[in-house]
């Protein structure tokens, strides 16, 4: 959608076809695990387009249909319905889907959350006031669902296989703080143990952990990550490696670009092949690839953003910018963990590589800019000390 808007804005007047496997027109995903799930928002508020905008952009929709094959040579995308679309330029933005737990089997009451239909199904389950909600996987989506369910007054348990939730991204210390926010609000957080199986007669009744613990559950939401939707591209000749591999300008092949959760590209700012699953990147990369397509071979600009995302957990707005790892050096640059309002800088190999904020949007943005500018770790710390004095 963002790409289509940009193509029109930049003066492209040819045909634009949008293909999507969901029956819905494009919508905004972040509210799904927050305001939609909590019941605060109506569906209309997540729509990314309306009839007037649609007319203006003059788009041709193929909804509820999906791309099944790509011929790079002939420049044709084949759809499930049998339609073949030929193209001069192609944007691959097929996103990612939830990894599900195979042992969930056919039991009712076990969900993943990715799309609008998932959110609505979980919302109606929450409205039926289940006795006990279990969230499997303390990633950011799982944690948001846990927070939303808890704020509805439900009893919630969150289970995480790693010793510390969010450890891989935030490191042990900051991961613990995030888990503690949940504990403070009455979520039971169980870590360091994986789910073994689910028990129930038609509907889920219990979650069995690997250490034998049995947890009562009448609603389970699984949030253990996503994988990129690239199966339809197998055999197309494009390189698939946990996403569609692109060059540093997001081009996967001549006149074929990729954007959003499905794209993997070398981000020169971090010297890393990355695939980013955040809203902000989907918007920025969507705009970038539209310009990339229109510029053709003349555009050699590389796409080197500083990834950023936010998550709302209870009354905390948590923001993370950059590319952090659990082994990075960390330094609290403002505030304190005790008051749950602080910003933590992450450093690696002498460079500032990340900033985590708990209700500190101003600092996150300052440091995000410093990351984009390639600021050294030493200068970042000096900046923090100067501000504090």
């Amino acid at each position, binding site marked *: 959608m963002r790409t289509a808007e940009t193509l029109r804005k930049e003066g492209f007047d040819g045909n634009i076809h949008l293909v999507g496997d969901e029956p819905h027109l494009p919508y905004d995903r972040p509210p799904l695990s927050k305001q939609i799930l909590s019941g605060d928002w109506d569906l209309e508020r997540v729509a990314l387009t309306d009839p007037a905008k649609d007319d203006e952009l003059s788009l041709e929709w193929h909804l509820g249909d999906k791309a099944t094959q790509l011929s790079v040579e002939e420049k044709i995308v084949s759809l499930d319905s049998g339609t073949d679309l030929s193209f001069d330029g192609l944007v691959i933005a097929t996103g990612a889907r939830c990894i599900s737990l195979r042992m969930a089997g056919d039991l009712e009451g076990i969900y993943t959350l990715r799309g609008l239909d998932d959110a609505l199904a979980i919302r109606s389950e929450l409205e039926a006031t289940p006795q006990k909600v279990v969230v499997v996987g303390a990633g950011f989506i799982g944690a948001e669902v846990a927070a939303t369910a808890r704020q509805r007054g439900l009893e919630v348990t969150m289970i995480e296989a790693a010793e510390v939730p969010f450890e891989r991204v935030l490191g042990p210390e900051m991961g613990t703080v995030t888990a503690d926010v949940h504990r403070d609000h009455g979520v039971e957080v169980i870590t360091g143990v994986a789910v073994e199986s689910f028990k129930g007669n038609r509907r889920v009744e219990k979650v069995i952990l690997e250490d034998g613990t049995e947890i009562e559950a009448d609603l389970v939401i699984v949030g253990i990550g996503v994988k990129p939707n690239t199966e339809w591209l197998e055999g197309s000749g494009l390189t698939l490696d946990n996403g569609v591999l692109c060059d540093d300008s997001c081009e996967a092949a001549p006149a074929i670009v990729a954007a959003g959760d499905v794209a993997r590209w070398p981000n020169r700012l971090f010297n890393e092949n990355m695939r980013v699953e955040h809203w*902000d990147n989907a*918007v920025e990369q969507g705009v970038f690839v539209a310009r990339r397509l229109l510029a053709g071979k003349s555009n050699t600009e590389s796409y080197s953003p500083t990834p950023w995302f*936010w998550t709302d957990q209870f009354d905390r707005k948590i923001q993370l910018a950059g590319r952090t790892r659990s082994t990075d050096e960390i330094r609290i640059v403002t505030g304190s963990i005790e008051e749950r309002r602080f910003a933590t800088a992450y450093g690696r190999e002498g460079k500032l590589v990340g900033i985590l904020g708990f209700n500190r*949007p*101003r600092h*996150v*943005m300052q440091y995000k*800019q410093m990351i984009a500018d390639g600021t050294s770790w030493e200068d970042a710390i000096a900046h923090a000390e100067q501000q504090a004095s």
Partner: protein
Amino acid sequence: MGYRVEVDFDLCESNAICMQIAPEVFEVRDDDFLYILAEEPGGDLRAQVEESVQRCPKQAISIAEG
């Protein structure tokens, strides 16, 4: 042509993305609230304001022409 920057403060959650894109127009202060520094920032800043509109995670910013 002139234009006016409008923010729906019921939607705004002070993510401060706009502040990074257009620091002359938007500022999130230490009280965590967003302040509009220039309601009619003029043509030079138009592209930055438009990018802020697009990148606002809450879609809280709009441009009123006139």
